[in-house]
């Protein structure tokens, strides 16, 4: 009687097959993440070739990456500004569009919603080619305007999706309550809806910024070859030779990505406003 059972034992006995799937999760994770991670130690090498592990350790590659003459800094700055403007444009289009979609019941809303999101599924190469041809007729290839509009086309659907998911968790009656209390539709949108979904919208904006910041193909078509974005410059330089400085740039990009997605993950959970 009254034998003591340790909870560790309980977990291992009752939960064994579940632990198996946790093990699978870890293995899959390693499979997915290892390649991206070996770049990081490589970036702290000094040799002129990319090898793992590096034979000598140092910060030479970072010094080279930060050398203004190499053009990496200006490309990075260009990508940053482009990302900001494109995200701003996507916000102004995507949030009202998502609100319109989620708050009306009219014939074809389903279809519109499906079509609005279809660019997410569309092949990048086709979108890139199409944008190139389209912008050629508008004579905006090679301009910042072209890049901003191209990126906005790519990232707006993602903002629509994240905004829609935020709106789905927003009780429709909160808007009704505001209207009964005397608010106009504009007041409802700006004082009730927007503040309530700011978490998902912020998270979606960060994600959209990352997408823009990392985008290669559309930018490659549209950007002027002497004014590349950061990923385009990386891509161009890889086409000729895999320069070790790329490991440093890649590590920097991984770092930015981790930071932004961490921030985004904290902004995501709903009902955390102000906590």
């Amino acid at each position, binding site marked *: 009687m009254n034998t003591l059972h340790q909870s560790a034992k309980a977990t291992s006995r009752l939960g064994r097959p579940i632990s198996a799937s946790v093990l699978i999760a870890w293995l899959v994770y390693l499979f997915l993440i290892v390649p991206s991670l070996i770049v990081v130690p490589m970036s702290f090498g000094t040799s002129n070739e990319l090898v793992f592990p590096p034979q000598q350790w140092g910060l030479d590659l970072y010094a080279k990456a930060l050398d203004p003459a190499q053009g990496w800094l200006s490309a990075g700055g260009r990508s940053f500004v482009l990302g900001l403007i494109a995200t701003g444009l996507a916000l102004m289009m995507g949030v009202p569009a998502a609100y319109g979609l989620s708050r009306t019941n009219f014939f074809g809303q389903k279809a519109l919603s499906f079509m609005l999101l279809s660019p997410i599924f569309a092949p990048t190469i086709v979108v890139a080619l199409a944008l190139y041809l389209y912008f050629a007729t508008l004579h905006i290839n090679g301009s910042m305007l072209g890049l901003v509009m191209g990126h906005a086309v790519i990232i707006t659907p993602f903002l629509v999706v994240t905004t829609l998911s935020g709106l789905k968790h927003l009780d429709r009656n*909160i808007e009704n*309550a505001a209207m009964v209390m005397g608010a106009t539709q504009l007041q409802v949108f700006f004082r009730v809806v927007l*503040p309530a979904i700011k978490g998902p919208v912020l998270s979606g904006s960060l994600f959209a910024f990352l997408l823009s910041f990392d985008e290669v193909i559309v930018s490659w078509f549209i950007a002027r070859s002497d004014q590349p974005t950061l990923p385009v410059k990386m891509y161009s330089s890889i086409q000729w030779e895999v320069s070790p400085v790329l490991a440093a740039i890649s590590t920097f990009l991984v770092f930015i990505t981790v930071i932004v997605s961490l921030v985004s993950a904290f902004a995501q959970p709903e*009902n955390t406003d*102000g906590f």
Partner: protein
Amino acid sequence: MTSKLTLHGVSKRYGPVTALHPTDLEVREGEFVTLLGPSGSGKSTLLKIIAGMELPTEGRIIINGRDATEMPVRERDLGMVFQNYALMPHLTVFDNVAFPLKIRKTATEEIRRKVHDALKTVQLEHLKDRKPQALSGGQQQRVSIARAIVYNPSLVLMDEPLGALDKKLREQLQFEIKELHDRLGITILYVTHDQQEAMSMSDRVALMNGGRIEQIGTPRQLYFTPETAFAADFLGSSNFIDATVTARTSERTVCRLSSGEEIAAPSREGFSEGQKVRLMVRPEHISLLGQAVSADRNVLKGVTTGTTFFGESAEIRARLAAGSEIAIRIPNDYSLPEAEPGAPLHLEWDVRQTHVFA
């Protein structure tokens, strides 16, 4: 007393479907009126039309003397309390209650004072800086009530406000809302599907069924003189027995059951001899031990089929000689013997508690 809400022949059709037949209703100043009915009975449609979230197909709506039929929601001067509180998650309790005043561009000092008073009314001053999510369901609904009364609207609509709360809390808030109504003299139109809630809170109840008001009156009128079998069945418990009218005077209608036993009921218009009817008597109006039989009591024989203990009362189920099952609700006593299944029973009740329906 002046009328705060008047509906003249308000109806709603969606294409060929009629959600609400032409309906008249009046709510007087300071009155507590409840729309009671099962889901699909039209009570929500009616509420939405009054709030302005739907337009009526026909009819006119007068709120506080002004024709509000085509008025936008925000101009109707209503307050509203929703089942799921509908508080703004990004605002504190104070700012939620202040919202309608800010929309009205009330002066800051007046807002502070009015919000404070409203929160004091619902006993939540101490929580004014919390976010709604940090409150319990009952507290959130109290905030929502404070928000609906703080700007003193002509009429407060409450849409199943206690539906998301558990039983103990529901009973407590019933009491609080009723007390608030009596103390502040606000006019309330309340929607619920819970007959107990409707009866214990309302001045008048409008019982809805199939898109129309089936009966309207005080809770006592609905309970003791239901006009239809639906009303009898929806409010309180009820036993129905099939019978045929055999004799009729201006005072009494006598009906015969299939067993040959006869039951008397007060006469109502519209029944004739030979007509098939349904008799109704409530479980708690039936007594068990036969007293001296008088002309004022109906008596039936039956056989016990089971008993259920409910604490404050117990239910005995019996099969009548006429075949149907009947429930008898008796006050519970300590010393009450459990009735054995199969034991013969004599049931009796007051003739005045017998209702006849077509």
